[in-house]
């Protein structure tokens, strides 16, 4: 029972970050044009799909997915393409961190999901201009 509670809590944490990223990419895309806009749109879809998949996983384990907020306090104000890229970096790194607990749950399939989600988010962060770091998602 405790393991299931911990698993659902870890899924909820990842869901919250994916919901925030889905919202945030709307702001990112609004400040981009051309190829960069297309990349942001594709990344937004990735997060929306992850959000939906996590919602299903929580329900399948007897949990109630937390509803997304109507709006989110973004970490930075966005007024330029550079700001938009920086916001995308922040969103992706938040997603990386949000999956760390899921990498420690008993179910190896969820661990694999967490690890691959962290890798993909880190790759997207790098593409948006993040600096390399040795331990993404963990305290320094």
């Amino acid at each position, binding site marked *: 029972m405790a393991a299931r509670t911990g698993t659902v809590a870890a899924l909820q944490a990842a869901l919250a970050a994916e919901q925030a990223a889905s919202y945030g990419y709307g702001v990112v895309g609004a400040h981009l044009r051309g190829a960069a806009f297309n990349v942001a749109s594709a990344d937004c879809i990735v997060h929306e799909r992850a959000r939906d998949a996590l919602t299903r996983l929580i329900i399948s384990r007897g949990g109630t997915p937390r509803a997304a907020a109507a709006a989110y306090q973004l970490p930075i104000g966005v007024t330029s393409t550079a700001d938009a890229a920086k916001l995308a970096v922040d969103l992706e790194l938040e997603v990386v961190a949000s999956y760390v607990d899921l990498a420690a749950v008993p179910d190896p399939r969820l661990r694999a999901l967490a*690890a691959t989600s*962290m890798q993909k988010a880190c790759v997207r962060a790098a593409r948006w201009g993040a600096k390399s770091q040795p331990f993404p998602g963990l305290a320094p």
Partner: protein
Amino acid sequence: MAEPTRRVMLAAAAAGSLGLAGCKGIAALGPLPNISPDVVTLEHAIEAEELMVATYRAAAGQLAASGNGQRLSAVVTAIQAEHQAHVTRLRARLVLPPRLARTKFAAGRPSPLPADSHGIIGALVADERAAAARLTSQLLHAPPALAQLMASIAASEAAHVIYLRRAGAA
């Protein structure tokens, strides 16, 4: 996700052995206990990262020696430092009683690298991808805290591919 750390678990095991030995001397300690699969997993991860450090060191040396590879060499050296940080953090989890500690790690020698910078970067990209995939497999049954560390390292290595390609394309 609180769990006994590897350090705690090993310390407890050692304390238990000594407690059982009482005052009968070191001979009463009996045969060496088997090294647990978790420790073997951790040792393999450390060895793989040490091999990565050696490969990057060789790559940086080759690139620096080439005519126009100074900039690439700097990027490779920066990533090498991150792999060294991986080694350090993984090693911090491996605390073995002296009787169990291996005399040395049998880290493999890096494979020969291609002669040209394009080939070197391609080889490093392949190594990073393989490392991320290997860690993803290893963490599935690792102790929770080690699994989290491995997931983070795998994410770092997946992103290295982007930095290497960007540097190689510039």
